[in-house]
């Protein structure tokens, strides 16, 4: 396996993009990535997309997007692991370059969620259709089940959950591409409407349209692509776990996230404390807390205290979701895992502007599907 570099990044604005179609979202992000890479070569593409079928009635997404990007006949494959589809697409692209089969591969992610589909039902297909969804559970509901278990076991408070959203909005306000680029308060979170007790509207990531793309390349090609500091992918992992939340021994733990992280730390040869900037899958506030514990950033039950102490804020010891996270930036599900790598690349290139983590050299992106039955972790390294 050889080294793999991120040579180009692009993403659309995330939000309710009434005038932009599914295909154009992707093309816009991909074109931005080519412009960023300052090169045109492309050998292959992987597209993360959770549910083109349910959101816009479109399957066979790879061919459609390659066609509209004007890149036929290169091989293009749609990758699906629910909300981790983007992370899985990055991993497939990484493997193709690392294996030596291709020199330049694009990993894209796209979702068009606002075309009036039954979004709650479509997202729920990421859970066990026969034994969870059948009973009337929703995704906020599943994470609410985890939240109550976490609150019961570790006395995590409602306010601590709210602080995750407040922090991510604080970061998102500094990102021009976020769906909700404004600050919110704990009071606003606690006063927002109930979605699935104890989770309220402002604990939940929004329904979004958007696309993101990263171009991965071999060292040889990366060195020809001038203009940006080199960013290397030093770990790319994926883990799977039990599909139904209720089958897990400990409802407060995300074993797949833990597994994908441990393998990633080994691949990269680092320990969690060496990570300078992190993007995690904060689909709901409780998710960020559980993921922090699974990543080894905190002992079980201790992550919320770190959030409360401001350690995960920009300027803290472990800034998390400087992009605004899924909560503030938006969560076009298939695109989110790719957009995380976009943000890390910005940070490691030190192009983050007001939200730049000072001296950021190692970044970690964690993306998950369902209630964590799929998890991907990518660790990126910038220059010293």
């Amino acid at each position, binding site marked *: 396996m050889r080294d793999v570099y991120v040579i180009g990044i692009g993403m659309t604005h995330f939000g309710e993009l009434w005038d932009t179609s599914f295909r154009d979202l992707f093309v816009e992000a991909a074109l931005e990535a080519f412009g960023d890479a300052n090169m045109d070569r492309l050998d292959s593409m992987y597209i993360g997309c959770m549910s083109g079928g349910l959101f816009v009635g479109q399957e066979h997404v790879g061919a459609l997007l390659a066609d509209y990007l004007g890149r036929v006949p290169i091989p293009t494959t749609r990758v699906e692991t629910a909300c981790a589809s983007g992370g899985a697409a990055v991993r497939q692209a990484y493997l193709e370059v690392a294996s030596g089969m291709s020199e330049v591969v694009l990993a894209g992610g796209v979702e068009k969620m606002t075309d009036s589909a039954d979004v*709650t*039902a479509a997202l*729920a297909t990421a859970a066990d259709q026969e034994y969870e969804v*059948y*009973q009337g559970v929703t995704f*906020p509901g599943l994470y609410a089940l*985890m939240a109550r278990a976490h609150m019961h076991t570790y006395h995590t408070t409602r306010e601590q959950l709210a602080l995750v959203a407040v922090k991510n909005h604080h970061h998102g306000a500094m990102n021009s591409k976020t769906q909700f680029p404004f600050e919110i308060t704990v009071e606003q979170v606690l006063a927002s409407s109930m979605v699935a*007790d104890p989770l309220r509207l402002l604990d939940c990531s929004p329904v979004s349209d958007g696309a993101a793309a990263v171009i991965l390349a071999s060292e040889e090609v990366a060195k020809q692509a001038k203009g940006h500091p080199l960013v290397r992918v030093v770990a790319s992992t994926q883990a799977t776990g039990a599909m139904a939340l209720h089958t897990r021994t400990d*409802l407060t733990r995300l074993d797949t996230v833990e597994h994908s992280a441990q393998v990633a730390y080994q691949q990269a040869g680092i320990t969690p404390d060496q990570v300078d900037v992190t993007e995690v899958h904060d689909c709901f506030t409780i998710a960020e807390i559980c993921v922090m514990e699974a990543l080894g950033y905190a002992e079980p039950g201790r992550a919320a205290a770190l959030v409360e102490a401001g350690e995960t804020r920009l300027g803290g010891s472990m800034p998390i979701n400087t992009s605004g996270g899924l909560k503030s930036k938006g969560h076009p599900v298939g695109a989110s895992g790719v957009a995380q790598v976009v943000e890390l690349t910005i940070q490691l290139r030190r192009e983050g502007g007001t939200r730049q983590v000072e001296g950021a050299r190692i970044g970690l992106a964690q993306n998950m599907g369902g209630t964590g039955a799929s998890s991907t972790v990518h660790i990126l390294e910038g220059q010293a």
Partner: protein
Amino acid sequence: MKSPQYTREIPQRYRLEAEKCRQCGKVHFPPRLICDACQSQEFEQVILSRAGRILTWTVIHVPPTNFDLEAPYIIAIVELEEGVRLTCQVVDCDPEELAVDAPVEMVFRRIQEDSQADIIQYGYKAVLSRP
């Protein structure tokens, strides 16, 4: 859900039919072709007891379309006596009556319909055990 998909799971939805691994004893609900604990493919059929306890719960305020008229409703993860866990609604009570470890019994209820004209889909829900 259409009839064929619904009908296939009737033994589980209606009468909690599970299976026990002959090698390691793990009880699986729903049945699987291969035991995730020991990889054995030998099982015996068991009917789960209808008694359990609540592990965690939520109240769904924003439901999928098929459940629109029922919201808000309670969803819980319940552990049955055999150690099997399942996700189901808890009905005929207020959320204020719930607690971790509260004993429940499984009852047979309507779960959902795709529309007024479509089949009625039945299954299990939990009610609080009352003295």
